């Protein structure tokens, strides 16, 4: 529980004159669920974009399991096991639910170009295995019955769930969840929270969550880091954060 999974060291990113992330240091421990919260425009999404490789930092380092992954492309980051979800359910809209899942197995495929082109035994076997695993994950997430639906027809809640299922299918070591509870009713929120916990406990996946639903965050996370104006203003267990002055000020100041 104590060795670091991901370390952000002195991370900086600016858009023109605006400093979106400023000298951010953050350590994510292996096996924990870390909540990343902050007012709107605090730079949370930018942090995700930096980790996952959409942006290159102006300075600073990102270290994942001892390896410097600063400035890698998103697919290279994903290759190392860091998988993220997106704020607005981001799916492959014209593919079926099952095909959506199969995209995610891409990383685990060991059948090379020729073997998959020639439809070799190995690749067929592999695909069968992936399908089976995909169905398992869908069942686990409770949307197994929708496997042949086109994602475009799914209700919002299911789309978000599928987004998480896809991320899981990519065999992550670490998940970056971006507002997974947006637009859900309380019941759905509860289900989602318990599922995320289950993923964390049963599969030992380290998770970072960005979320505005404070109650859920407090319930879900082992630790919470608060940022504002791209700077970390507090870090600690939920109870500690709840009473932190700087945090209350940041949120009050916003509203």
């Amino acid at each position: 529980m104590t060795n670091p999974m991901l370390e952000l060291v002195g991370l900086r990113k600016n858009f023109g004159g605006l400093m979106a992330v400023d000298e951010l240091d953050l350590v994510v421990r292996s096996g924990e669920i870390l909540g990343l919260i902050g007012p709107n425009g605090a730079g949370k999404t930018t942090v995700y974009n930096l980790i996952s490789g959409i942006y290159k930092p102006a300075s600073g380092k990102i270290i994942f399991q001892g390896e410097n992954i600063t400035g890698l492309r998103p697919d290279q980051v994903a290759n190392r096991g860091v998988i993220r979800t997106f704020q607005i359910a981001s799916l492959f809209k014209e593919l079926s639910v099952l095909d959506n899942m199969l995209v995610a197995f891409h990383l685990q495929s060991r059948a090379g170009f020729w073997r998959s082109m020639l439809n070799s035994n190995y690749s067929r076997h592999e695909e069968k295995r992936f399908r089976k695993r995909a169905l398992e994950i869908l069942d686990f997430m409770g949307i197994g019955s929708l496997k042949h639906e086109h994602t475009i027809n799914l209700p919002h809640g299911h789309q978000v769930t599928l987004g998480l299922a896809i991320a899981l299918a990519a065999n992550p070591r670490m998940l970056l969840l971006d507002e997974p509870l947006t637009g859900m009713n309380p019941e759905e929120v509860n289900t989602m929270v318990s599922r995320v916990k289950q993923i964390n406990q049963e599969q030992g996946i380290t998770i970072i969550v960005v979320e505005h639903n404070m109650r859920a965050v407090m319930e879900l996370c082992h630790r919470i880091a608060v940022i504002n104006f791209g700077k970390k203003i507090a870090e600690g267990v939920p109870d500690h954060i709840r009473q932190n002055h700087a945090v209350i000020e940041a949120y009050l100041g916003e509203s």
Partner: protein
Amino acid sequence: MNKNNRIKSLLLLVFTIIGFLFPVIRNDPYTLSLLLIIFVFIVAAVGFRLIYITGRLTIGQAAFMGVGAYTSALLSLNFGINPWLGLLIGGIAAGILALGIGYIVLRVGGVYFVIITLCLAEISKLFWLWWRPVTYGNSGLIDVPGFSIASFQFGINKIPYYYLSLIIMLVALFVMYRMERSRIGIALHALGQNDVLAEHLGINRTRYRVLAFTTASFFCGVVGSFYAHYIHFVHPDQFGVMPSIMIQIYGIAGGIGVFFGPIVGSFVVAGLTEFLKIAKEFQPLIYGPLLVIIMLFLPKGLIGLPQMFFKSSKK
């Protein structure tokens, strides 16, 4: 689902058999000459679609046909290289060029890519026109040798050319179909629909797009080279913007969403073009509005036609 697939493969088999038996049933050089050119454009149109599914719309595929045609024609005219080898070399030349160009241009998306490829088609034509010491510019390359097997010259006989083009088309279609059906195809589709998400799932977008682009262009090069040795004449106008647009029409009018769309499109639109030639110079007056009408009623292409009937009868 499974049944559907079986019907599809059965239909496919039937069409392939018809394709192979056609010259036996009906040895009509004119029809054969039309069909074998349609086969050439089918390859280009399906290639156009292969690039399209990765989210890139190209109006420049004829440029790669040109590369194949000029490479192979020039090699056979100047160095006596066998046209059979030329087919492969033409394809490889187009493929290599596409690989290099693809790595640069495929990073650009949306309408910019459309226009860059339009530029590409125009540049290639201008280039063949300009490089006169080698290509004879607008005079074209005359008397490009044809194919032969041992001492048998294909000559004026359309049948061997028909079979050759049929085989080339089947091979190209098979490869591109396999590619789309394999895990590579899923990655390509994923890129087309949401390349940010795909990239975050570990799919290297440039590499996969270049793969699709290169594959499509390789086959374009091969059929371009075939074209040169079949027509025995290579002219820059055949590989500029207008032919590229034609390829694109075949693909879109047929139905870009489905693998068989461009095939249907090539047959129907090219057949229509040929049929309308009885109207002589008035042909575009009918052809143009027909294209508009097809797209107005079938925005998903001709392949949507049976579906439409199916749905309306269901109601």
